[in-house]
């Protein structure tokens, strides 16, 4: 996996995570998630009325392994706010439950 992670991939991911305020890397698409964890993330963001960009890691093996190296996080989905890694499904869910998600979103100028 390490060998696949080139400077080029890193640069590509860097641009991807900064392409929008909220970016998620998931399995499947926002309309058709292919995994329950990815679906949960989409549902939470939709619940808060957040506009986000999603990338389907199943469509790109290089990005799929690269994103894990980039964020040093072993699983998908992955959530980024303003280019900063926030966490996976558990973390977003806990932030949603605890109400911190609203604060975090307002920090990046999103009213939910």
């Amino acid at each position, binding site marked *: 996996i390490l060998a696949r992670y080139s400077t080029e991939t890193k640069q590509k991911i860097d641009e991807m995570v900064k392409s929008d305020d909220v970016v998620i890397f998931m399995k499947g698409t926002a309309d058709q998630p292919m*995994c329950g*964890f990815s679906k949960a993330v989409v549902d939470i963001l939709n619940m808060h009325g957040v506009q986000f960009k999603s990338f389907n890691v199943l469509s790109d093996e290089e990005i799929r392994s690269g994103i894990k190296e980039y964020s*040093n*996080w*072993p*699983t*998908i989905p992955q959530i980024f706010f303003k280019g900063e*890694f*926030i*966490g*996976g*499904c*558990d*973390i977003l869910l*806990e*932030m949603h439950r605890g109400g911190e998600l609203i604060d975090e979103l307002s920090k990046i100028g999103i009213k939910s």
Partner: protein
Amino acid sequence: MPVLQSHVENKLKENLNPIFLKVEDFSDGCGFKYNVFVVSKDFEGKGLLQRQRLVNEILKEEMSEIHALTQKCVTPEQWEKMVAENPNLSNENQVEKPNDSTKKCEFHQH
């Protein structure tokens, strides 16, 4: 290769000194999907991301085999509050799932 539940438990016990630990296999005994609930002092002063990073690091080798891992990492203080609200929590025994070999494991690579 499936990862044994006891292996996951032991590794977390050794590294985190948890005051409460619950590891659940939700792949019907296949050893590929785990829910982990850990209460440890080591989480004090750490955010959600840092806590989970700690667990990921401990299970680094195993993660290449495990397809799904959910985590809930709380401090003893948070745990006390949780138990105060729901006293059954600490008595809850791990549910032993029947090992039904006819059930096919859904392949869920991360």
